[in-house]
């Protein structure tokens, strides 16, 4: 999700029709976009990450204008600028494209929207400038011919927003953007630059030059995109070129020379898709005439014509989200209006069932509740500190997170006993006795494989030890679940010596119980005698 704030009046002006707030919101919400806030001057819109072409105010307005029929889609003409960009071998970012925009009128508002769209494209399709980076320059400050190539680290230029010359290397140290994006290219021997007769005028993906700064006095623009992925660079250049066209500016293609190849930077290639009427009916469950389908597709900005039972659809180059016939059919559904679909249940019969595992756990819950224990719920996420250190036991391998957001949650729990003790430590001033239980997942790591198990733990904390009550609960529980069990005396640091037992079913250890060692109670700052039993319920699911 990407949230973008637009100048509302600018948006309405670009749409080209007077709309009140209600109408505007209604129109926007016919798409995947949602309006988060609307005020006198601003509108805050939540976009989905597939429709990157709608992020710019121009692209957004175009989509809305086409939808209300103020414009019919047509293929624009990109003229030839007649000059070229030479793209040499650049290891760090091999792909580069650029185009020219002439006779622009730039006011503060437009300048801001230019900055906004660069920023949001860098963040989204650019994956924080890794995949692509955009530079927009004052064309009249550039002397052709221009070349995109590798430069020596020591070469100098004046970065945008700075007043001194610095070497490319120094840019990493001395500028904010340099620090932020250094990781993207610093590891390479030589760095990517754009160069004209006067020297370096852009250092992608870090900074443009002060020399080619765009101001409200700028008349003509050079827009360049560099990146590590050819398709993404092309997609970005198309989205930008169409945005400028939308403003009514003239957009010119450059000749891109790369090795022996020579291409136009703006190919204006509208990909053809054949959409089957039958597939539309099958997927959407509605019957539409070919004429209606074409009309809807035009509202969504496609060029479409009927070919027998097929619709030939031409996709605007900025619609980079279209991968498959179904993507176009979804747009037909949007054009048709989701509110016009009659929800319907299919004529099929299926038998419902509940997971046996969950149902067995529910039976255990009922028994525990009957015994007077209150159910508690705690996170599966835990920390080694809670699982081992505070329990006084030796650390072992656990499922551990690489990117935790808090010291409290860095691994998955292997036992529920810390969960119960944590709970007791938080309830020192509530009425005693406190009988609690939890049924939950623990995850062990065995031979580098995660093993998930359902555990039950229950405890009694009171002013006097309730060992015998706990022991009685164990017997009762096993009786009610049809299981014979045996108890063996056990030694475990978590429990007072001589007051700890292990539980066995069919000679397999399934649990442990006892009175918690005062040393452990102290670790958790618990001041009441506490007895706990923990049982691995896996034996119930075999």
């Amino acid at each position: 999700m990407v949230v973008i704030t637009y100048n509302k009046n600018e948006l309405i002006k670009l749409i080209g029709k007077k709309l009140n707030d209600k109408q505007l919101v209604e129109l926007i919400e016919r798409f995947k976009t949602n309006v988060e806030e609307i005020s006198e001057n601003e509108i805050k819109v939540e976009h989905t990450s597939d429709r990157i072409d709608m992020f710019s105010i121009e692209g957004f307005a175009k989509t809305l204008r086409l939808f209300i029929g103020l414009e019919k889609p047509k293929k624009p003409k990109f003229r030839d600028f007649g000059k070229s960009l030479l793209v040499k071998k650049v290891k760090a970012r091999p792909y580069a494209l650029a185009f020219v925009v002439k006779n622009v009128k730039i006011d503060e508002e437009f300048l801001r929207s230019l900055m906004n769209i660069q920023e949001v494209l860098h963040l989204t399709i650019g994956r924080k400038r890794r995949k692509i980076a955009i530079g927009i320059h004052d064309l009249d400050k550039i002397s052709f011919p221009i070349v995109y190539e590798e430069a020596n680290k020591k070469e100098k230029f004046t970065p945008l927003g700075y007043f001194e010359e610095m070497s490319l290397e120094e840019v990493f140290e001395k500028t904010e953007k340099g620090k932020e994006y250094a990781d993207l290219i610093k590891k390479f021997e030589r760095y990517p630059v754009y160069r004209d007769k006067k020297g370096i005028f852009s250092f992608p993906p870090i900074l443009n030059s002060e020399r080619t700064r765009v101001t409200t006095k700028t008349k003509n623009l050079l827009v360049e995109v560099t990146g590590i992925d050819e398709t993404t660079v092309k997609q970005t250049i198309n989205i930008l070129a169409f945005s400028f066209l939308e403003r009514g500016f003239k957009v010119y293609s450059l000749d891109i020379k790369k090795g022996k190849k020579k291409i136009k930077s703006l190919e204006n290639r509208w990909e053809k898709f054949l959409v089957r009427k039958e597939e539309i009916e099958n997927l959407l469950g509605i019957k539409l005439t070919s004429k209606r389908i074409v009309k809807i597709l035009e509202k969504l900005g496609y060029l479409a014509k009927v070919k027998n039972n097929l619709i030939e659809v031409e996709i605007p180059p900025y619609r980079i989200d279209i991968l498959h016939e179904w993507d176009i059919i979804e747009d037909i559904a949007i054009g048709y209006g989701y509110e016009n679909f009659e929800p319907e249940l299919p004529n099929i019969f299926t038998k419902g069932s509940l997971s046996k595992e969950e149902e067995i756990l529910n039976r255990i819950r009922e028994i525990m509740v009957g015994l007077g224990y209150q159910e508690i719920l705690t996170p599966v996420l835990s920390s080694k500190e809670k699982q081992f250190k505070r329990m006084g036991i030796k650390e072992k391998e656990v499922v551990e997170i690489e990117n935790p957001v808090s010291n409290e949650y860095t691994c998955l729990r292997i036992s529920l006993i810390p969960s119960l003790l944590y709970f007791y430590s938080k309830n020192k001033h509530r009425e005693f006795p406190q009988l609690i239980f939890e049924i939950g997942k623990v995850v062990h790591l065995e031979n580098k494989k995660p093993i998930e198990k359902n555990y039950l733990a229950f405890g009694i904390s009171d002013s006097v030890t309730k060992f015998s009550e706990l022991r009685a609960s164990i017997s009762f529980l096993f009786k009610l679940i049809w299981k014979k069990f045996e108890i063996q005396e056990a030694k475990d640091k978590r429990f007072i010596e001589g007051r700890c037992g292990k539980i066995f079913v069919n000679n397999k250890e399934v649990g442990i119980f006892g009175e918690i060692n005062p040393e452990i109670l102290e670790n958790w700052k618990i001041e009441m005698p506490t007895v706990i039993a923990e049982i691995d319920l896996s034996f119930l699911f075999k």
Partner: protein
Amino acid sequence: MKEYRLTEEGKEYLEKGLPERRLIELLKEEPDHFIKMEVAIKKIKNFHIAIKWAVEKGWVRIKNGGIELISIPKEFPEEEALKKIARGGKVSEEMIRILKRRKLIEEVILEKEELEKKLKGKEVSELTHQIIKYGIWRVVKFKKFNVRAEGKKEYPGKIHPYIQLINLVRQKLLSLGFKEVNGPLVELNFWNCDALFMPSDHPARSIHDIFLLKNPKFGEIKDKKVWENVKKAHLNGFNTKSKGWGFWDENLAKRYILRSHGTAVSARTLAKLKEKDLPFKMFTIAKVFRPDVIDAKHFIEFDQVEGIVVAKNLNFKHLLGFLKEIAVEIFGVKKVKFKPSYFPFTEPSVEGYIWLKDFGWTEFGGAGIFRKEVTYPLGIKYPVLAWGLGLGRLAMQILKINDIRYLFSDNLDWLRNKEVIIW
């Protein structure tokens, strides 16, 4: 009208003092009011009784393997009571209960005639076994009870409110003919993302959206065919006529993560689905994890309800039909509306809204038809309707809470006093 007399133990304490008195006196003599456990055990007869009562009354505490005196009692009411009872006097009901519990007194059981003579025409407060058995209730009056008195507070065990809610949702989905399925918490990126056609560099796969594991780091996908198919779907669309993404990061797909959405369970289920299982409807209540800020609306561990419907000839209208039915059944609302949405794995995609009196139109879940790039590689040739709901909002609404952290509440009073769900 009961009568009591001292037991042997009661007589002994009347004579020699209660064990806890002896413990307190011993402690008083110690310089720092502290005594080692072993020493106390040796010196005090009936030590376990002494310590139990001294702790319960808050006179001493156990510390560093010994006993510490924390407050010196002014009197020992039990001793006074024993004296009174020995003289045939009366003590409070509460004291009777305590002395009976300590087995220091016992009830004197009178013969029928004796009892009848004693009680006839009198007002009794307690109806006893003997009064019923001997028919004496015919000749006595019963003392009036205060029916307005609150009575003694009790905390019965209860099922956690959130589990009650989850069970409610499970019952509702059962009634709609869905089969419950489970999947692992520790998941492979492959099932969580790649099998769902999320490109390797999709923003929702970043470290800000998914918990990657440091240990274990990599796993294997056993079904090599599915592995190859998914790879092709990413590279060139497999046999779906899709363009695909043109790239795929194989190593990323092998990484272990914590499941970030319930849809991973749907992907696993589809991979195992056979023709004979159709038509098929499943749901899962999946615990999921996301590296989010922790506040009133977000926790890094929460649950999602997800489901799929697989059958021949399903379409978008059926998707809306199911989504509406589920909303009506679970949320108990009448009005539902839909709007376009985006999920990387469905096309078309839809967001569902319900009308709530207090909140207006409220989003309750998302749905869509799985893309062919998702279903074909898993061997499914039929349309798959997929839907998902967040439980958080439902929980907040039904349990009347305004902070999601209540679902993991560490407040025992809240859990003890929280009303049961009636929905």
